[in-house]
């Protein structure tokens, strides 16, 4: 067991009484049990099949501060660039894990857009009904988060409501605590026939190492619609394990887009449980990373009921000595006849030192289904490159144009034009090109 694990176990005794929800016996017991499981399991190593390609050692070795203080000196000007400009949004901003009411715009009018802390302390019925019901006990990082999670976003959209503007959730880390370990948690409940768009990002503003173990539980009731965008463009000091678990009921549609452009190590555990007929699960993403960066997408779609659709499209572009991992598991249970599952992972290596491990994993127990999957790893096509250059487009721009063309279809599902434009800008910057041709 690493030192971090031991630090966590001993900190829990001190932290426990001060955590939100400590008056709720159900929550208290849940935390204790989760910590017990973590104590037994510890952090995964590369000997675990699910962590074979991603080594956590370089992240776990730091001496992290676990009980974090917020920082009052952060102003709107410091975080503005991480929010969408020219667009009115609800905002939930957390500094070192603590909710910042002066940087946020929450609401309780037609829907609850507030904090997980408030839910823990004020809505025992909601907590009893939803907490821990999507994210399964027994997964190390989920257990650890369940034990410690103190705050985060709480979104509840009541039946037949469409949230009038997107919700931005921003988790900021500063140097206030030095090297810090954060564990926040979202609870997103979209009731019957309700609709909402959520953007989320984690950002380390400081110079010290940070490590975030994050859990997001999502519940989509019948015919609910959710677009959930994760923008990952953090500093080289920041590592993130994102555990997102989505429970879907009949006729619901959930899209999770993950756009990974930065961070030291990012692991996305994205899990869909398709538990009602005609549910649609969409997950897509673009990864563009360079020297010293690792992004690992581990996805699961668990088809439990008939007539469901899942679509998975991940594009990866790897520069320098970066490392990408894609592990896409599609599980079709015996009952889930007429499932239509699509999965595609395409990667381009723009450097000899870049590396990608890609693994589709299909487990199908029903006999009347349509499941397709494919993965590719390649370089840019030399013929195409010559074709563009022979038309006067310089080599660098031609490479950028081809790379952009390769990746851009993973942005098509985005419903917020400002976000699409913003991401196009990031891509252009990452590839060092002018994207006029595409806009």
């Amino acid at each position, binding site marked *: 067991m690493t030192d971090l694990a031991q630090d966590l176990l001993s900190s829990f005794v001190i932290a426990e009484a001060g955590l939100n929800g400590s008056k709720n016996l159900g929550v208290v017991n849940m935390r204790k049990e989760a910590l017990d499981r973590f104590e037994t399991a510890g952090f995964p190593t590369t000997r675990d099949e699910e962590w074979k390609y991603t080594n956590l050692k370089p992240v776990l070795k730091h001496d992290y501060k676990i009980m974090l203080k917020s920082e009052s000196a952060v102003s709107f000007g410091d975080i503005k660039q991480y929010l969408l400009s020219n667009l009115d949004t609800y905002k939930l901003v957390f500094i070192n894990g603590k909710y910042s009411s002066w940087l946020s715009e929450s609401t309780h009018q037609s829907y609850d857009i507030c904090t997980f802390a408030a839910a823990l302390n004020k809505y025992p019925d909601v907590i009893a009904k939803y907490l821990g019901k999507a994210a399964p006990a027994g997964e190390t990082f989920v257990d650890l988060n369940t034990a410690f999670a103190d705050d985060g976003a709480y979104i509840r959209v009541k039946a037949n409501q469409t949230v009038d503007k997107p919700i931005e959730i921003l988790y900021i880390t500063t140097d206030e605590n030095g090297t810090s370990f954060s564990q926040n948690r979202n609870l997103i409940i979209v009731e019957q026939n309700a609709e909402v768009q959520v953007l989320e990002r984690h950002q380390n503003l400081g110079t010290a190492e940070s490590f975030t173990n994050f859990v997001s539980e999502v519940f989509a009731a019948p015919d609910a619609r959710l677009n959930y965008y994760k923008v990952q463009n953090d500093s080289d000091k920041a590592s993130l394990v994102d555990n997102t678990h989505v429970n879907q009921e009949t006729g619901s549609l959930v899209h999770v887009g993950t756009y990974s452009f930065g961070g030291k190590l990012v692991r996305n555990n994205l899990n869909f449980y398709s538990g009602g007929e005609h549910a649609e699960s969409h997950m897509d993403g673009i990864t563009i990373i360079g020297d010293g960066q690792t992004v690992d997408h581990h996805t699961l779609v668990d088809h439990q009921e008939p007539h469901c659709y899942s679509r998975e499209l991940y594009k990866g572009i790897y520069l320098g000595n970066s490392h990408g991992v894609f592990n896409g598991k599609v599980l079709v249970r015996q009952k889930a006849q007429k499932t239509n599952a699509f999965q595609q992972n395409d990667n381009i290596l723009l450097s000899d030192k870049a590396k990608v491990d890609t693994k589709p994993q299909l487990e199908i127990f029903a006999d009347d289904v349509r499941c397709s999957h494919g993965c590719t790893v390649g370089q840019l096509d030399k013929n*195409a490159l010559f074709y563009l250059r*022979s*038309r006067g487009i310089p080599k660098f721009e031609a490479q950028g144009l081809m790379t952009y*063309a390769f990746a851009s279809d993973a942005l098509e599902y985005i419903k917020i034009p400002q976000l699409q434009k913003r991401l196009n800008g990031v891509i252009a910057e990452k590839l060092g090109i002018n994207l*006029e*041709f595409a806009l």
Partner: protein
Amino acid sequence: MIRINDLQARVEEKEILSGINLEINPGEVHAIMGPNGSGKSTLSSVIAGREDYEVTGGTIDFEGEDLLNLDPEERAHKGIFLSFQYPVEIPGVTVSNFIKTAINESRKGRGEEPMEAREMLAKMREKTALLEMDKSYLSRSLNEGFSGGEKKRNEIFQMAMLEPKLAILDETDSGLDIDALRIVANGVNKLRSEDNAVLVITHYQRLLDYIEPDFVHVLYNGKIVKSGDKNLALELEAKGYDWIKEENV
């Protein structure tokens, strides 16, 4: 305009061009014919700057400049255009965005200002009409799902937009039915002027019925073994390539 002198080139260890001499002046149309494997496409690729070929000897002078030292994009900026035998499909880039980028990068390469959007649009309208292309072409992904004829027409559309000094048409007639051939040839003829030149590379004489050459050269085993006027093409059509091969054993 272009003077090719004793050009030798190989791919990997295999010599393909063994001393080509060719001079093309403004206003002229030259045709290069020859049997399969004679080096026709290699010659067009070497002029356009494809890096798979290694030039082992000789020179190419284009308007007083040594072409062999230039990158493919720089050659395009100087006014060289190659119509590909097999145009490449590029999903995700529309024809109009591609041609806009090509024109403005070429202008930038020559130190000129980008073309005004209005002028660009008018020009696209004019050139699509010239090639009897539906405007919906412009918003399709470049060559993706295009038929063979559509791809070739799209090549000539790009040529019309870029207005090169020297256009090299590499087997532009292959894969075209007779109507498409007429449209493509008509497009090329309309673009001809006293200031530009065309090099037609073809296996068959068919295209030369529509684009009439001033000179015809026969390429065999990496050398030009015979030159003449348009009648040479007719002779080749009638007699085949065997007599050329026999003469050059």
